[in-house]
């Protein structure tokens, strides 16, 4: 295969459409007779619904219908399902609209459907809900205290599950013989995703065919269809078509099945007209699944040589008021299993308590469990290095899993496929000129300037698989991916992938793979995704799975197609199949390259079947379902250099170096963009972002005036490079790159700030590291 495209930093083919405003998002769509929904949401975190008076709203001019939770349940609508079940887990019902009680601010209690959105909003304000406010709890630790208000009767102690991994006894033993131990209390604060395009849904019901069509901002339209049809609405799966057109960012928040899309789909049949809803930003804040929200006690033990003996972690994970689609998996199998990091840790023990609170549900947010794990491990590594008086880079190096130990079985279930951790560390140290930087840091400290250098040596597990294993761990879905590749009679190619792009650039990266495999121009390749009406099936895009799993499925289909095409070419060339070579889009008999059949000629013959191998079916298309043998494990080292203004406590990032290893890179430009965005979000968590609930579980940070997302001027120019350690078990040798930045950056920045603050004797502060928090800590340190 000639690689004319693979590895080339091509500009994204989809960008001209996005940049010119020609994208098609759900809210851009309209239909004849379209109506608009406005949601009536609870202002209380916890309250009994005594009555809902909808008369005034119904009588408002332009209002078509008003529905409540009772209307839905009485018509047979079921609870939203949870897609990952843990043993002994409590699974209270989660109806699209509250029926008897509301359990978080923003929970939907009624929907108004009107001729336009303004009228719908006016009428929503006329729906009178009689609430009996009840005590509420937002903090997971407080929710576990005796006497805390219970979120659900099914879980009076607010415990959804208790889960553990590793070997508790062996870990106890390791700590008993430890030379030195360190302990950190870490709060991994709640984040609010804020994709630039708010969630939206538009549904249509066709009474002639009894079919529904739902356009929805989904990262996985087939999963949406399956869960909504089979579990919530009882629509036969083949009678519901789900289309996810251009989607403006997801970061996980558009994986899940939410109340709103089930409401508009159900309502479209009831009102006999299509219904559209688009979230206002305020609705996004209270209704998009939030991320993170862990409280963790973590301890690390080392022997006399500074080699790690054991790691003990106890985490309380806030799940919010209801279980979002994949909520139970995030603080367990995507977190506890990553706690070995890049290190040889003989004994690990991790216990996680999943807790209900009166807050917005929590689920996957970019990185999903892996940033939380990296934060625990990398904060401990820094803390221990300081405790031992060792350089943090050298302490890490000493404990790395060496390259000759792969595949490496960790004590927390995973088997790492490949890695060269020292290679990435060395490259990053070189790029930042580490020794000289440490010298400058010393010198500047003498001048009263507080520079900090922070490392984060992270591991990611992406392309979660294989299906049999994840099924045994509680997943209610397979995690393979499908690809249908259709070659048209003219040799042009359409690929129907089960992944979905909402910023990832699949229309370019996947086309690069196809164009190389078939030796055709990239312009001849079209990538189709996001429509259950055309794509056979798919699990969607999250967990950095698209290239390793979705890309591999495409390769399998291309192999099948090339095999068949070779048969056709052999017939045309009157040669034995095994003598036919396929190169640069031409088939020829080995040694006679001048006598060839082009890709187009062969494709045409597949459809004419005039001069054709006997017994061979006409047509040229193939579909594949690729189920990976294992996860794949990207890794790398990120280094942040910060300066803290000791007067105001403000942190400025001076430099940021990222060395990532995601195996072979399909498109370096796209990969770099992913790393940039990921770092920005990781920095956001470290310095800026954080949901703030008050004692009544009211969300105080419910707008972009209060909730600080990172902006260009918060960030330095990133210095980015990579190493290449191919994935040994997928056909492309690729790993995932979509989340590495987020996974690495948070710990790198916090470690850097703590390094800057070390002269004050400050060992740890919780995120976000706001100026006030740092200022207070410095004040306290100076007073002490």
């Amino acid at each position, binding site marked *: 295969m000639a690689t004319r495209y693979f590895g080339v930093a091509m500009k994204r083919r989809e960008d001209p459409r996005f940049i010119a405003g020609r994208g098609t998002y759900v809210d851009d769509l309209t239909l004849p007779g379209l109506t608009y929904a406005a949601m009536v949401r609870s202002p209380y975190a916890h309250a009994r619904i005594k009555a809902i008076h909808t008369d005034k709203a119904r009588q408002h001019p332009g209002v078509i219908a008003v529905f409540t939770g009772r209307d839905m349940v009485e018509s047979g609508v079921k609870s939203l399902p949870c897609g990952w079940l843990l043993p002994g887990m409590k699974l209270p019902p989660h109806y699209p609209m509250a029926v008897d009680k509301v359990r978080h601010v923003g929970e939907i209690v009624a929907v108004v459907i009107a001729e336009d959105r303004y009228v719908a909003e006016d009428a929503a304000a006329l729906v009178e809900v009689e609430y009996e406010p009840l005590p509420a709890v937002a903090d997971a630790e407080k929710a576990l205290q005796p006497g805390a208000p219970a979120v659900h009767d099914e879980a009076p102690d607010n415990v959804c599950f208790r889960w553990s991994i590793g070997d508790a006894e062996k870990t106890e033993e390791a700590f008993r013989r430890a030379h030195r131990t360190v302990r950190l209390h870490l709060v991994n604060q709640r984040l609010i995703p804020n994709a630039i395009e708010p969630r939206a849904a538009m549904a249509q019901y066709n009474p002639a065919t009894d079919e529904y069509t739902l356009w929805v901002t989904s990262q996985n339209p087939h999963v949406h269809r399956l869960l909504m049809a089979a579990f919530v609405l009882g629509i036969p799966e083949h009678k519901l078509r789900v289309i996810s057109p251009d989607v403006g960012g997801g970061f996980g928040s558009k994986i899940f099945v939410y109340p709103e899309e089930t409401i508009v789909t159900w309502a479209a049949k009831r009102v006999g007209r299509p219904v559209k809803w688009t979230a206002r930003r305020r609705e996004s804040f209270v209704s998009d699944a939030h991320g993170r929200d862990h409280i963790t006690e973590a301890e690390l033990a080392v022997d006399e040589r500074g080699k790690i003996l054991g790691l003990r972690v106890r985490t309380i994970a806030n799940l919010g008021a209801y279980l979002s689609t994949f909520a139970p998996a995030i603080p367990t199998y995507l977190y506890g299993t990553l706690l070995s990091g890049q290190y040889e840790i003989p004994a690990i023990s991790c216990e996680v308590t999943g807790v209900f609170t009166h807050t917005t549900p929590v689920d996957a947010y970019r990185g999903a469990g892996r940033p939380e794990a990296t934060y625990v491990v990398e904060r401990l590594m820094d803390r221990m290095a300081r405790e031992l008086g060792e350089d943090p880079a050298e302490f890490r190096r000493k404990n790395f899993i060496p390259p000759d130990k792969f595949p490496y079985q960790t004590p927390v279930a995973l088997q790492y496929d490949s890695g060269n951790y020292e290679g990435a560390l060395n490259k990053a140290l070189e790029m930042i000129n580490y020794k000289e930087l440490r010298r400058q840091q010393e010198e500047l400290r003498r001048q009263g300037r507080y520079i900090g250098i922070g490392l984060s040596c992270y591991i990611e597990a992406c392309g979660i698989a294989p299906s049999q294993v994840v099924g045994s761990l509680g997943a209610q879905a397979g995690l393979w991916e499908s690809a249908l590749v259709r070659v048209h009679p003219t040799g042009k190619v359409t690929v129907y992938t089960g992944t979905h792009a909402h910023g990832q650039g699949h229309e370019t990266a996947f086309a690069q793979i196809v164009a190389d495999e078939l030796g055709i121009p990239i312009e001849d390749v079209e990538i189709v995704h996001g429509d259950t009406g055309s794509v056979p099936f798919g699990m969607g895009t999250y967990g950095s799975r698209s290239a390793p799993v979705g890309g591999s499925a495409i390769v399998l289909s291309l192999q099948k197609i090339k095999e068949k095409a070779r048969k056709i070419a052999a017939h045309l060339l009157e040669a034995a199949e095994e003598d036919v070579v396929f190169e640069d889009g031409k088939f020829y008999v080995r040694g006679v390259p001048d006598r060839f059949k082009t890709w187009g000629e062969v494709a045409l013959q597949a459809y004419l079947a005039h001069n054709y191998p006997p017994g061979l079916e006409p047509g040229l298309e193939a579909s594949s379902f690729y189920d990976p043998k294992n996860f794949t494990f990207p890794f790398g080292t990120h280094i942040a250099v910060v300066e803290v203004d000791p007067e105001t406590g403000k942190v400025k990032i001076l430099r940021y170096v990222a060395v990532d290893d995601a195996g072979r890179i399909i498109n370096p430009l796209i990969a770099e963009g992913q790393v940039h965005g990921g770092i920005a979000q990781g920095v956001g968590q470290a310095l800026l972002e954080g949901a703030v609930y008050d004692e009544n579980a009211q969300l105080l940070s419910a707008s972009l005036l209060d909730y600080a*997302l990172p902006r260009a001027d918060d960030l330095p120019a990133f210095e980015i490079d990579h190493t290449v350690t191919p994935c040994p078990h997928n056909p492309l040798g690729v790993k995932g790159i979509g989340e590495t930045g987020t996974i690495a950056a948070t710990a790198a920045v916090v470690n850097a700030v703590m390094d800057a603050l070390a002269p004050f004797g400050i060992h740890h502060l919780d995120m976000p590291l706001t100026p006030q928090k740092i200022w207070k800590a410095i004040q306290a340190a100076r007073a002490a």
Partner: protein
Amino acid sequence: MYPAAFDYYRATTLQEALSLLKQHPEAKVLAGGHSLIPLMKLRLASPSALVDIGRIAELKGIRRTDGTVVIGALTTHREVEFSEALKQWCPLLPEVAAQIGDPAVRNMGTLGGSLAHADPAADYPAAMLVLGASMKAVGPGGERMIPAEAFFVGMLTTALQPGEILTEVHVPVLGPGTGWAYEKFPHPASRYAVVGVAAVVRVEGGVCREARVGITGAAPKAFRATAIEQALAGRPLEEATIRAAVEKAVGPEGLLSDPFASAEYRAHLCAVLARRALLRAARRAA
């Protein structure tokens, strides 16, 4: 993002705007729309009518009369930021305007709109106080000049009476030996001032003849830090002097407090930013 229904009137002259306001006493005045429209979209404000003054030509432009710069209320932040006239006669204002919001906001938002809205965290009020600016208000009873000290009454409240429109801002030209600076500590989300300090100093013969320090963002309305001003008058503007003058000059009592910045932290920022502003102003005066 869906405001309640309202009537919309567009005035093309000031007289027309005044008569529209008289006919519709519940109406709000719309200029650049960067404060009012977001409130309406969130339904925190639901005026029954808007009188759009955005196209009234006589409210635009910057001119000088004797010792005063007259700035039309509809002058955008962007125009203030890039005005050669202001850079020459009152360079503090371009320095302030450059730190408002982002370019999109600065292109649409207006000086008069910002002042009339009186957000406690807006940038201009601190500068207006230290510049000794006056606001010209025109209403049914004629026109009047309101000094900045009297203009800002409280949170989102000014001395403007119902039916009155802010038409001009009069700012004395900065004389020789005068230094200025604006130091802002922006909120990372809103980019409004958590604390903003404007300073103007007049130095003669190495001695500070007059220092004016205005603080925005810290309290429900912008105020002058008179303790700092008095401590500096008549003294050379050396770093140690300034440092001593700002130390604990603003206490936390009466200051705003929110999850991002407590009253104590705001008081501390007042001192830090006042020192930084005064040092820069002193260098410019020299």
